């Protein structure tokens, strides 16, 4: 039995409070900005030859509009298409008010930033618990013999799913057109493409869909946890709870793969309402799956270091690390598949998505490949290293950071454009949800014994040996 230590409780509450204060201040300060402030800022930036002041990490800014080769001319042409597409406000303004329109546009982006920062962090932690829920269901549906010793950790992480998902949906609803441009009736009125999608992309239907997903996931999580606990108390020859769990897990996985896909269109892809990718659901799935497995490994190693999970041996860690390695490669495969087809076809309305990211988000966009692919690939390749806890922890932290950046790259370009930075609002939002996540997960951990002793595969799992 795990008891939620006072120290950890204080740390998590502290993270939450610090995050809330940090985010709150950045929210208030961004809303205090007026168009005059922005004009001064833009004037300052122009006198500094490009946007170093506001960008920090961005190095591509200066070469933005320099056209050297045919190849770049091509890209630049696409960029102009993209400009006219995203900067809808600009078009409506007459040329005389070009500077005013630009300043207003930048002001909007700066207003959006705290909302987007909060949304990215909320989604990141929510996606961890949803990924773990899918992993958990797969273990049951496959009747896996190696993993039952880890079930209680997984159940604790999925306890965050309901609050986490409600936060994401709630922030989406509250932020409205600060994140989802199609929620602004003014924009829709001037945009035929969004008008054509209004049957799907409207606020009511968006909310109803979200609630259906959350209800379905939470019902599965509720009953599966209930059966798992009941199985502990059941008679030795009574496996009915396990069998029920097997059945609902198989059913849940079907529900999950549809709803996860639709959720990723709704909650992420629709921030760029003109753009779509048919494998986007899979891509987000890979991200949440690898993040979820990584968190299982990290919490397991933490509890094992406290001497609370002696029944977890090297081979369990080895298997988790293998999954981290494998799903990192899988994520890269999907990332590249999506990128290469769009890059090769070079259709303006598609390629604008990546042009924005390569031009304005060069470092996070390509840095993410190092964090999510090259680093875990090289570090976790050797079989022996997959059994060394600190190797797993190191690779795990890099993977989690990389997948935060992945969500960042999916949301930010559509909301704040080139006004991005990982500063106070972003870090505060991460701390806020990290505190919440730790509090909820470790509270759930303390509610049941750490070994699901009634599971019919528990002996096999305890003796699991590679």
């Amino acid at each position, binding site marked *: 039995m795990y008891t939620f230590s006072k120290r950890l409780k204080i740390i998590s509450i502290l993270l939450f409070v610090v995050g809330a204060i940090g985010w709150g201040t950045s929210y208030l300060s961004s809303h205090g900005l007026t168009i005059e402030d922005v004009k001064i800022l833009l004037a300052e930036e122009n006198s500094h030859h490009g946007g170093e002041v506001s960008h920090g990490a961005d190095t591509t800014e200066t070469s933005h509009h320099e056209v050297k080769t045919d190849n770049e001319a091509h890209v630049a042409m696409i960029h102009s298409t993209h400009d006219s597409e995203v900067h809808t406000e600009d078009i409506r303004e007459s040329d005389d008010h070009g500077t005013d329109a630009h300043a207003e546009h930048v002001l909007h982006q700066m207003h959006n930033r705290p909302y987007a920062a909060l949304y990215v962090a909320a989604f990141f932690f929510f996606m961890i618990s949803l990924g773990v829920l899918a992993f958990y269901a797969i273990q049951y549906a496959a009747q896996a013999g190696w993993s039952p010793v880890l079930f209680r950790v997984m159940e604790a992480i999925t306890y965050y799913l309901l609050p986490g998902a409600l936060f994401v949906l709630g922030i989406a609803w509250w932020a409205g057109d600060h994140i989802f441009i199609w929620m602004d009736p003014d924009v829709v009125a001037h945009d035929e493409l969004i008008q054509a999608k209004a049957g799907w992309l409207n606020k009511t239907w968006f909310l109803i869909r979200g609630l259906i997903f959350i209800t379905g996931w939470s019902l599965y999580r509720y009953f599966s946890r209930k059966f798992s606990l009941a199985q502990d108390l059941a008679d030795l020859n009574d496996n009915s709870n396990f069998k029920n769990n097997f059945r609902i897990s198989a059913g849940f996985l079907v529900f999950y793969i549809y709803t996860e896909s639709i959720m990723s269109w709704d909650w992420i892809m629709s921030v760029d309402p003109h753009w779509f990718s048919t494998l986007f659901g899979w891509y987000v799935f890979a991200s949440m799956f690898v993040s979820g497995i990584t968190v299982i490994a990290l919490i397991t190693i933490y509890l094992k270091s406290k001497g609370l999970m002696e029944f977890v041996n090297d081979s369990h860690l080895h298997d988790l690390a293998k999954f981290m390695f494998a799903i990192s490669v899988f994520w890269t495969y999907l990332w590249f598949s999506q990128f*290469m087809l769009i890059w090769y076809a070079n259709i303006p309305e598609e390629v604008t998505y990546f042009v924005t990211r390569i031009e304005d988000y060069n470092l996070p966009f390509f840095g993410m490949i190092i964090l999510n692919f090259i680093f875990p690939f090289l570090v976790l390749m050797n*079989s022996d290293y997959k059994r060394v806890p600190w190797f797993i922890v190191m690779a795990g932290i890099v993977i989690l950071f990389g997948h935060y950046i992945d969500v960042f790259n999916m949301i930010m370009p559509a909301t704040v454009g080139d006004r991005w930075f990982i500063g106070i609002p972003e870090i505060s939002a991460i701390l806020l949800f990290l505190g919440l996540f730790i509090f909820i997960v470790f509270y759930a951990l303390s509610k049941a014994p750490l070994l699901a002793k009634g599971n019919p595969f528990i002996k096999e799992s305890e003796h699991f040996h590679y």
Partner: protein
Amino acid sequence: MGSLKVIHALYTDDDVLLSAVKAVKAEKHHIEEIFTPFPVHGLDKAMGLEPTRIAIAAFMYGCVGLIVATTMMNYIMIEDWPQDIGGKPSFSYLENMPAFVPIMFELTVFFAAHLMVITFYLRSRMWPFKNAENPDSRTTDDHFLMEIPVHNNEKELKTLLTKTGAVEIHIVDKEAH
């Protein structure tokens, strides 16, 4: 070339064989070789064999494949005869890299896989037209054969092996390699 006396003990079950190996090792006898119809999980550890280094070789072969793919395509597609494919003029390897990635991946896998198999065969001393080394053809069907060199301890070995559940025990004169 002297001749070497070896004992051949035959088993019919992999679990029995595994516990026999442990018993023989516990008595500090050297096991020369074991012939099995299929890979027996944990046998290498029980025999005290060193872990395989084929993974390291595979990594290096993969790197060779990656380098071959990169230099080959850089020469063919960029330096020697630049072509405009799909509106993407080939003036720079890096800018056209997405198109090359699948081939880089495939050649990495191709080199790693093929060279690893060839290395494994050579390391196991298996090459074309080589005569089979297994002393009893039943080891390709359902029997397991353990080969232990004899150093004037025939009786002791025979009793030990019988106890471990060997179904047949032969003393054989073997030509030393």
